[in-house]
């Protein structure tokens, strides 16, 4: 089986199923099957599970590039779009549960929350940022936008930072887990920064006509 087929028939379906697992567990909990339960406060549990899943997928999306470089798996980039779209899907569900079940469609209260409560403002901004990224995720949009596509999609870094921030701020006291997320995100973004800095330096060195060969990056 060649790479194309392996991705199409094995890896992508597996990632797809994996991405649907959290919501399947929520359904199992909601219906009380497979020994699952949403606990005494099912709304909060669902809200947190969806939010956390979105964040996890966002982190996985950002992990694709480093893995591609470091493990030398160029094709892994093919699953990135799916991961990113699922991150958006869970973020949207997270907001929907907040709006419909938690706030009971009390729009006045939701608007007040978004304007007044910094952690909600930050989380909502992250969601809004993800919208154009999801909309422009098709092959056609990639072609149409050309180089601007990549510039636009760098916004995912901002969305990821805001998501971790949103999580950090909503925790009452025990910030250990949000800090772990922040650390992972820092590594993922730091990797990109260093790589860019090195490649710039390499370009500068080669342009200046130096005798030494550009550093391998």
């Amino acid at each position: 089986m060649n790479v194309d087929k392996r991705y199409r028939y094995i890896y992508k379906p597996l990632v797809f199923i994996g991405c649907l697992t959290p919501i399947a567990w929520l359904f199992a909990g909601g219906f009380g099957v497979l020994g699952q339960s949403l606990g005494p406060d099912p709304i909060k549990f669902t809200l947190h599970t969806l939010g956390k899943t979105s964040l996890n997928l966002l982190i996985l999306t950002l992990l694709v590039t480093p893995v591609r470089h470091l493990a030398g798996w160029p094709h892994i980039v093919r699953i990135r779009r799916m991961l990113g779209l699922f991150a958006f899907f869970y973020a949207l569900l997270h907001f929907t549960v907040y709006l419909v079940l938690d706030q009971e469609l009390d729009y006045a209260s939701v608007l007040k929350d978004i304007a007044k409560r910094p952690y909600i403002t930050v989380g909502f901004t992250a969601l809004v940022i993800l919208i154009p990224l999801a909309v422009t995720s098709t092959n056609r949009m990639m072609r149409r936008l050309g180089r601007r596509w990549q510039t636009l999609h760098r916004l995912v870094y901002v969305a990821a930072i805001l998501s971790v921030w949103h999580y950090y701020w909503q925790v009452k006291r025990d910030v250990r887990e949000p800090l772990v997320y922040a650390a992972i995100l820092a590594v993922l973004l730091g990797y990109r920064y260093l790589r860019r800095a090195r490649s710039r330096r390499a370009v500068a060195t080669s342009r200046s006509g130096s005798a030494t060969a550009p550093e391998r990056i």
Partner: protein
Amino acid sequence: MARTPSTRILPSDITPPEVFFNRRQAIAAAIAAGVVGLAHEEPAGAASSGSGLKYTRNTRYSVNEAPNSYEDITTYNNFYEFGTDKSDPVQNAGSLRTRPWSVVVDGEAEVTGTFTLEDILKPHPLEERIYRFRCVEAWSMIVPWLGFPLGDLLKRFKPTSKAKYVQFTTLYDPKQMPGQRYPILDWPYVEGLRMDEAMHPLTLMVVGVYGKVLPNQNGAPLRLIVPWKYGFKSIKSIVKISFVERQPRNTWNVATPHEYGFYANVNPAVDHPRWSQAKERRIGNGFFAKRIDTLPFNGYADQVASLYKGMDLRRYF
């Protein structure tokens, strides 16, 4: 959304009495099946249940709302000494040894010293009181506590005129309380009340719930319940009671002073800096649990509002 602010208690919220009172049989059966009772602490008289804990039902101080299930009350807990997730305490509190247990009483009182739990409990007949419980995180429950008025206990120590406040301390023992291995809060947990709050007849020393001995995750063997204040005031697993002259520290206030005050009276008009306190979600109503309006002083305003007459409740939150 349609709301019914004027009718706080819907007919559907009220458990039919035959269902509610039949639970005693189930409890008696559970106790007979091996649940440890407080048999050696049974007060004289006041026998209302078949076996195990003896108590009277105090309807005067009980709300007319259906209690949450025993499962909700004992599996959804904030007790950071055993972990910060709501489900951590029930999983981790097994390591707490509640017998033998002693309580140190010190400070501005004539009678001080170290008392065994049995000494503390002996003279006090137990009553069941069904109270509202409102967490600062905007969720709530209805709980049938078993206990006795804190004031009755405090009077035995003959506090002096210098005793303006009373401070409580939770056990500090990271071996038994694994959550204390991390500096999430400034351990041990401490809380305090003004003397008039402590002596108020609604303020309860609690040893049981639903007719049974308090499970560890709910703050065994001895905890406070102050129903008109946010839950964090109701300190658990108490090992020390101190009569003091100055307003004592309380743990959450030390942690984040702009978010948690000393008084912590339930107040829908004063929001937590990060979330609204206007409404609360009653636990136990599943996915379609409606948010209900939070009441000033958690619905106990007619009994306690006078304690705070003339105070700016925004400042003293």
